[in-house]
């Protein structure tokens, strides 16, 4: 299971370098395959030696991910990947850390760790595979399942308003928030690159299809035949336009979004870098069928990372003390006496 032979900085890596000898064990047709393929495609482009890359996951179908990427990997316990990643990244800031989680792992049992890692702004990349269901445990509803969804554990339909992952991420002060989809590999790869390039916590919701327990859940807006009309591709500095045959845009009415004809006055321009998160929040609340569903980067703001601040405090303390602390002095304490 160990990596084959040593790599070091500067070496040119290819997708093949990131494939392990483990047989991939998702159901045929699962959206996870597409995500894996794009990750393996993007990783060699990052210029990071593979021994510096670590994938950390929780539990779920999605969380099997690390077994298939030939870097360091840790398939931890349910919901705790963000906390494990925090410890790892603080201990070893020069690693490139990816967290892979699911809608159950990351938003049900693990919701709190997710929020806290985002507000702390550890420089890690979080990929949340949102298939709207608990896949691994065979089909119960998840926090992102739509209201009324019939599953094994909700035979009469769920009675809970779903969590909106991007809204929660924005409210939790994530410095990078994006959404993409398994069925749009090019956009997926692009989004992964953006996430990797961002310093600070990058939160990426990946709409993913579970062919077994929640097939076609995202099809109403992601199906190839309708996507161009029901997805809003967010592009920095560009007006918020969607619809290929009948182009329309998003404008604002007070603080509420509305759909207008393309090129109407008041059409919004996408600015993910705004310090004020209100526009990003509004975008995160656009849902089908009232609105097109935005894919792309919702928010991207610069903020110092937790680990750089933590190590900065250590360095500064050492600097201020004129060097690292002396263990003998510390053990001796401030006040001692000698018996002869």
């Amino acid at each position, binding site marked *: *299971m*160990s*990596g*084959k*032979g*040593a*790599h*070091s900085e500067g070496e040119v890596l290819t997708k093949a370098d990131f494939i*392990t000898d483990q047989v991939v064990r998702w159901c045929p047709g699962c959206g996870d395959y597409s995500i894996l393929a794009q990750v393996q495609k993007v990783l060699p482009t990052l210029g990071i*030696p*593979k*021994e*510096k890359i*670590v994938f*950390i996951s929780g539990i779920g179908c999605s969380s099997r991910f690390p*077994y298939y990427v*030939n870097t*360091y*990997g*840790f*398939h*931890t*316990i349910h919901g*705790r990947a963000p*906390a*494990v*990643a*925090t*410890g*790892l*990244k*603080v*201990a*070893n800031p020069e*690693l490139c850390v990816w967290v892979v989680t699911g809608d159950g792992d990351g938003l049900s049992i693990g919701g*709190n*760790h997710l929020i*806290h890692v985002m507000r702390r702004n550890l420089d890690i990349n979080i990929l949340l595979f949102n298939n709207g269901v608990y896949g691994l445990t065979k089909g119960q509803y998840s926090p992102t399942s739509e209201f009324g969804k019939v599953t094994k554990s909700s035979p009469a339909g769920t009675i809970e308003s779903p969590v909106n992952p991007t809204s929660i991420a924005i409210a939790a002060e994530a410095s990078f928030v994006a959404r993409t989809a398994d069925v749009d590999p090019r956009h997926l790869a692009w989004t992964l690159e953006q996430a990797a390039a961002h310093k600070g916590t990058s939160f990426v919701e990946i709409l993913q299809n579970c062919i077994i327990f929640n097939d076609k859940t995202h099809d109403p807006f992601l199906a190839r035949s309708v996507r161009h009309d029901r997805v809003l591709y967010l592009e920095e500095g560009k007006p918020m336009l969607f619809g290929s045959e009948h182009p329309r845009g998003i404008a604002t009415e007070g603080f509420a979004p509305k759909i207008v004809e393309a090129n109407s006055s008041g059409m919004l321009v996408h600015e993910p870098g705004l310090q004020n998160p209100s526009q990003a929040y509004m975008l995160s609340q656009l849902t089908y069928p009232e609105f097109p569903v935005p894919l792309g980067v919702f928010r991207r703001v610069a903020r110092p990372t937790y680990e750089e601040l*933590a*190590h900065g*405090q*250590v360095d500064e*303390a*050492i600097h201020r*003390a004129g*060097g*690292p*602390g002396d*263990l*003998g002095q*510390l*053990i*001796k*304490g401030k*006040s*001692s*006496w*000698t*018996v*002869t």
Partner: protein
Amino acid sequence: MTPERAANRPMEHPTQDGKKLPVEPVDRVTIRFAGDSGDGMQLAGTQFTDTTALLGNDLATFPDYPAEIRAPAGTLAGVSAFQISFSSYDIHTPGDQPSVLVAMNPAALKVNLPDLEEGGILLVDADTFTQGNLSKAGYAKNPLTDGSLAGYRVIQVPITRLTTNAVTEVSGGGSMAAQSRNLFSLGIMYWLFDRDPIHTIRWIEGKFKNNPDLVAVNRAALQAGYNYAATAEIFTSHYSIKKAATPPGTYRKISGNEATALGIITAGKLTGLPLFYGAYPITPASDILHALAPLKNYGVLTFQAEDEIAAITACVGASFGGALAVCATAGPGLALKGEGIGLAVMVELPVIIAMIQRSGPSTGMPTKSEQSDLLMALYGRNGEAPAAVVAPSTPGDCFWTMIEAGRIATTYMTPTFFLSDGYLGNGVEPWAIPSLEELPDIRVTHRSDPEGYTPYVRDPRTLARPWAIPGTPGLEHRIGGLEKNDITGTVSYDPTNHQRMVDLRAQKIARIADSLPPSQVDGDSQGGDLLVVGWGSTYGAITSAVERARSEGRSVSHLHLRHLNPLPRDVGEILGRFDKVLVPELNTGQLRMLLRANYLVDAKGLNKVTGRPFMIREVYRGIISALEGTR
């Protein structure tokens, strides 16, 4: 006052103003400072302790806080106390009973009087015995006047008024007096036990260096108390306690939690690993976080997690990254960490879990102490998930036992529990400062050689798997909580592999016993009538009680276990040398169960679950009963 072994010949001693009062040498004194939470009793006790430590007495302390939350002033629930026992010989506990009680208000008197020795000295602030305070304390009559204190040497002092007077002189107003009454009382105690207040004066000067008014006020209160005692002739003599005959060396005063924090830093340095401390605040473990957080120049990274689950799993992550990862918590926190610790067992990564035990179950009594989490440490997670367990026995031993935890965790790649408790954590004793050369060599090197590397190949001696950390070229690998294939570490559902891995994990922990020195029996190592077996914070009380019984010629010995999992290999054999086995514990019999199950010896328990430590005499009586077979 009935100081233990009080000598007979009073000595002459000059007081500050030239008068001479007799100085009686005594061997041991136990003082309890008691007052309202707001009265600064912990501070007075700590100052007395510092001064006493510098004088070279042996000492032990027991701070007894009220519930975590502040109670209304003057009520029973708000009483805070600090006990110090100090002596000219080697002592092991803060004393069963105070011989001197300082009671700053009626509530403090009410709560603490039952513990005061018969004939003991009782110093009270007479000004506080107002109708209001008496009824808050539930006194129908004033105990100062109703004759109920006849059995004690009562010293009534108008402390509030005298402090106000003293303070007014230096600050032009008495408004700061309330905060310095404790120093007035402390001054009295300094005089009574012949201690120079200079150390505390220096402390005041340092603490308030930016506020000369406060320096003046506090110094005045302290001096006023000292002078009042010297001149007012409220005492007929005062007492001196000789230095203890301690082995040569340099000493400091240390609390268990301080020693634990020091041990953590030291274990980091000795292993040569970066130190990651991840914790969520909880009484009585928070002070370890407070001690480590400012030591950034020692390279320690402290992480205040969002909860205990995040703390332990962040530790697992840091350990995966090659750090020495340590967390500390108390019972309710450990109850949350089970799954994370189980993960560390499966992925075989070192993590140290310091448990500062407190009274349970549930929230229990957070400020009170207990030893009731041993079985949770052993069994509080799913599946067959063995981990190492060690327990310190005195405040200073927390340092050494933490280093031992570091050795075990990193040598055997295993989560390792360190079972302290609130009594040890907050208690203080003089501690012989080790030189760096005395410290064990437990340096760790991470695997870097890809040759022959697989994640679960094992060291043939320790059975530990290699610690290969992210960033190391050529050792890329994946681990996780699913069962691992032997050697390769891939996921495996194979039945025989599972059996083998369950066995290997158990054997690895069992092998730790190979690295342990022979167990020390205090007393007759060759056997005898009774063996008292203890662990953790009961060390002091058991040691003293056994010494007492032995001084009476009884055949009693003492085995104190630092290693609880695995148990040392010679324990069964040692138990077999004694007719009877008694296991005093501050729980309902947790170690006792392990000893009975492992060795089929009819070990009897001496159990107390009151939130308080054993008194020496409780253990002594237990020993006598056990010997007489009347239990």
